[in-house]
């Protein structure tokens, strides 16, 4: 049976989902207020005329819209009996994220956050090494993610995107939890501050997490000036060793080509390589789950907690103090049992 997938939204991230659904053999349609035809033409999709039209003809809904619309669309899709893949963050707020998780449990549908960093091979290598105990008990970890800022205007409206912490650093917040376990305390700072709901174009935020194990994690997020190359790194130290990665150094190919005197616009997304795209690996794993295969490496609760920790970081900035974090309280009784 062919998996029928409906993508909602045709902006930036849909281009990193659509071709991979096609690759895994899904029948894909798209509904979007803007850009549906163009996305459909580029990847050979069909276009749905309305949300209802889309829901009627698919098994899975893949939500690639701006952040504030994620939860409402996800809940509607779940209530219409669809499984859901939702671009991160699954909600602009913890309450929204929890609404998606609650709906999924209530209606017995699968819902997952697209925390794609869990599919990047360097982070996968780190996770497996930590799981098999190669570096012992984790003591201290650092994660960094930065490059030129987002291109669409809505990212700089705090009400819409949640700023750099909810939009970008949520990736490494999820990594920090994945690697060192549940979080009990959050401290954060941001410079320049978000004033009157306007997220600065160039902004740096630092988040420090304390885990239930006593381990500590530090995350740096940067939305830099135009032209700043995207880069990520981690450095994780445990009782038996360390593991580190820096995207600026381990290239399998080093290339200068098509050199001109004109600056080439750098990409907001990570550079591509000849290896399988982590975005494809991600779609493969979710597709298999939707078709009755094994559960994927990320759950809807992971998505909820990432949003909740990001919100705690924002609260920490507002209060100028560390904030205690209680994962069980965030998930409530239903989520905690799941």
């Amino acid at each position, binding site marked *: 049976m062919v998996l029928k997938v409906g993508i909602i939204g045709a902006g930036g991230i849909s281009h990193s989902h659509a071709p991979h659904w096609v690759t895994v053999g899904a029948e894909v349609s798209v509904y979007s207020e803007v850009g549906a035809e163009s996305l459909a033409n580029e990847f050979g999709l069909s276009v749905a005329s309305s949300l209802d039209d889309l829901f009627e003809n698919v098994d899975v809904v893949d939500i690639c819209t701006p952040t504030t619309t994620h939860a409402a669309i996800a809940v509607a899709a779940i209530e219409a009996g669809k499984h859901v893949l939702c671009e991160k963050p699954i909600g602009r707020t913890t309450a929204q994220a929890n609404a998606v998780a609650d709906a999924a449990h209530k209606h017995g549908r699968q819902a997952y956050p697209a925390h794609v960093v869990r599919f990047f091979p360097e982070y996968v290598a780190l996770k497996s090494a930590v799981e098999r105990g190669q570096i012992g008990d984790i003591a201290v970890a650092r994660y960094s993610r930065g490059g030129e800022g987002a291109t669409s205007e809505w990212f700089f409206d705090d009400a819409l995107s949640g700023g750099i912490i909810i939009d970008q650093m949520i990736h490494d917040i999820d990594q920090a939890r994945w690697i060192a376990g549940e979080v009990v305390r959050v401290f954060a700072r941001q410079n320049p501050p978000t004033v009157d709901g306007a997220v600065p174009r160039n902004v740096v935020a630092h988040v420090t997490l304390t885990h239930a194990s006593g*381990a500590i994690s530090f995350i*740096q997020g940067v939305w830099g000036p135009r032209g700043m190359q995207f880069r990520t790194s981690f450095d994780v130290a445990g009782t038996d060793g360390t593991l580190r990665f820096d995207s600026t150094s381990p290239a399998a190919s080093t290339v200068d080509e098509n050199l001109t005197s004109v600056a080439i616009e750098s990409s907001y997304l990570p550079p591509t390589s000849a290896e399988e795209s982590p975005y494809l690996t991600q779609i493969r794993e979710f597709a298999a789950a939707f078709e009755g295969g094994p559960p994927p490496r990320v759950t809807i609760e992971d998505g909820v907690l990432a949003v909740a920790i990001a919100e705690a970081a924002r609260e920490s900035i507002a209060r100028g103090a560390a904030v205690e974090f209680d994962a069980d309280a965030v998930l409530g009784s239903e989520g905690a049992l799941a």
Partner: protein
Amino acid sequence: MKVAVLNFAHGHADGYLRHLHGIAGVEVGACDPEGFRQAESLAEAGSPGGTVFFGTYEEAAEWADAVVVCSENAKHREIVEVAIAAGCAVLCEKPLATNLEDARAMRHAAAAASVPLMVAFPVRFSPAFATLRERVATGALGDILGIVGTNNGKIPRDRSWFTDPALSGGGSIVDHVVHCADLIDALIPQRAVSVIATSNRILHPHVATDVETSGLVSIEYDSGIIATIDCSWSQPESASSWGGLTLEVTGTRGSVKIAPFAPHVGGYDAGGETWLPYGSDLDAAMIDEFVSAAAAGTQPQPDADVGVRTVAIMSAALESARTGSVVKL
């Protein structure tokens, strides 16, 4: 010019002594009343002129024009005050002191006696840091927004006093925060206004039972610049290098990351991975600066002011790690 190394508790003392012997016109003295070194091993490090040995700090300071203090952190004040009383220029190992009160008293004593007091922050003399400073000063990075410093090394297990809080003042926060804090101090005119820190004792549980071994220290500066320093003793014993220091500076027009100890030739020998560092000898550059300033009677950098400011950040970090609260400076 007579320069004496006072106390050999700190591992850098041997290197300082060796380098002093290489400076033309410098007579070298040593005082090691607690016997950290065998006299013969000190003499071995010596030049044809040899090393003059003293039984007490007072005798050494009486003889010397300048001294380098390499004792355990908690004894810095006592020894530095002996040297200042004898009119010596002083280079003191970092941190300047284990608490703010001692650090301020040392600065005051040096100022009152009009003798130079310098703090041993050798990374200041790194060419990589010099070019970073230049880039920041010329505005190539725009307005500075955030800084991440890391100073990770092996736990100093051959020197048990490093993990004895009565002698060291604390663990990795005391050992490593001040280097990055000093570099940031030199890089931007802003001053730290608040500190929050978190630490644990997960690493080296059998070696360090009374002090923190990992720490993350977050500092806010008075224009809103944010900095975080990872000061953990997280370089594993099995590593082929001692560790390193990095400073990543992000501004509105760009970012720079320096790693002054990164340049090396890598490879493998019979013992496994090997690491051959190359580049400037930062300790030597620092000693040269100290000796020439002492000879000229001028105040070298890094001075006691930055010594006090870095101790303030370090002390605030220790307090915050204990209480969980933000500490205002």
